[in-house]
C-alpha cells in the first residue's frame, strides 16, 4: 500500500511566506500612513507660520529716493 508522503515542510514554508508577505505589506502601509501624517503636520505648521503678515511700514521699503532723502536730512 502506498503511504502518504511527508510534505509538511513545504506546507509550513508556504504558510510562513504567505503570512510574512501579508504582514510586510500591512507594515509598509502603516509606515507610509505614519510618514504622510508627519509630513502633513509639518506642512500645516509651515503653512500657518507663513500666513500673510501685517503690511510693512513705508520707511522699510527699498526706495532709493526715500533712502537718500532720509540720509540728507540726517546730515542737516
Amino acid at each position: 500500500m502506498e503511504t502518504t508522503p511527508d510534505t509538511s515542510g513545504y506546507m509550513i514554508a508556504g504558510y510562513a511566506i504567505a503570512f510574512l508577505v501579508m504582514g510586510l505589506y500591512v507594515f509598509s502601509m502603516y509606515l507610509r500612513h505614519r510618514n504622510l501624517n508627519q509630513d502633513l503636520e509639518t506642512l500645516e505648521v509651515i503653512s500657518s507660520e507663513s500666513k500673510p503678515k501685517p503690511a510693512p511700514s513705508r520707511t522699510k521699503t527699498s526706495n532709493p529716493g526715500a533712502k537718500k532723502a532720509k540720509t540728507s536730512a540726517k546730515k542737516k
Partner: protein
Amino acid sequence: MQSKPLTLKVLDIVTVIVLAISTWLALVFAPTEIVMGQVQRVFYFHIGTAWVGLMGFVIAAVAGIVYLITHDLKWDRVELAAVEVSLVFFFITIVLGSIWARPAWNTWWTWDPRLTTAAITELIYVAYFMLRQGIEDPERRARFGAVYTLLGGISAPITFMVIRLFRTIHPVVIGSQSAAAQGGFSMTSDMKVAFFFALFAFTVIFIDLFWHRIRLGGLQDKVEQMKLKVTM
C-alpha cells in the same frame, strides 16, 4: 488628520478573525489529502489569494474606465489601490503554487500555460508602477495608468481561463480539467468548507486592505496639495 471610520475599524477586527478561522480550517479542520500529504493544504490560500488577485486587476480596469469617462482623480486612487493590493496577493499565489509544485510535479517552476500567464500578469502590473513613476503630471499619469490597466485587465480572464482552454498540467478545481493535469484531487465536504471559507476570508481581507490603500492615496494627495500651497 482624518480619523478611521467605525466601519473600517470593525472590518479590521473581522478581517483578523476570518483570517484566523480560515487558517484553522485549512491547517486543522480539512483532512489531509492522501496522495500529496500536508502540502495540499497550501491550496486553500493559493486559491483564495488568486481569486482576490485577479478580481483586483479587473476592479482596476473598471476604475480605469470610470476615470477615462469622468476624469475624476478619485478613480485613479481606486485603480492604484486595486493594483497594489492585488499584486501582493497574486505574488503569494505564485509563490504558494511553486511550493506546491515541488513535491507534486517534482519542479519549482515549469513554463506551463497557466504558470506563464500568471507570471506575465504579475509582471504587467509591476511595470504599471514603473510607468507611473516615470510620469510627473498627475492628470497624464492617471490617463496613462487608466489605459494601461484597461489593457492589462485582459490578462486576468486569460489567466483564469487558460487551464480550461489549453492542454496544461495545472489541475482545475471547478470544471473539467485537461487530460494532462497532474496533482488534481476531488474535494471532500470538509475540504469544500475550508475552500469556500478561504474564498470568503480573502475577499474580506482584500476589501479591508483596499479601503486602507484608498485612504492612504487620499492622504498622499492631500500632502501633495499642501506642499504646493506652501511652496507657492
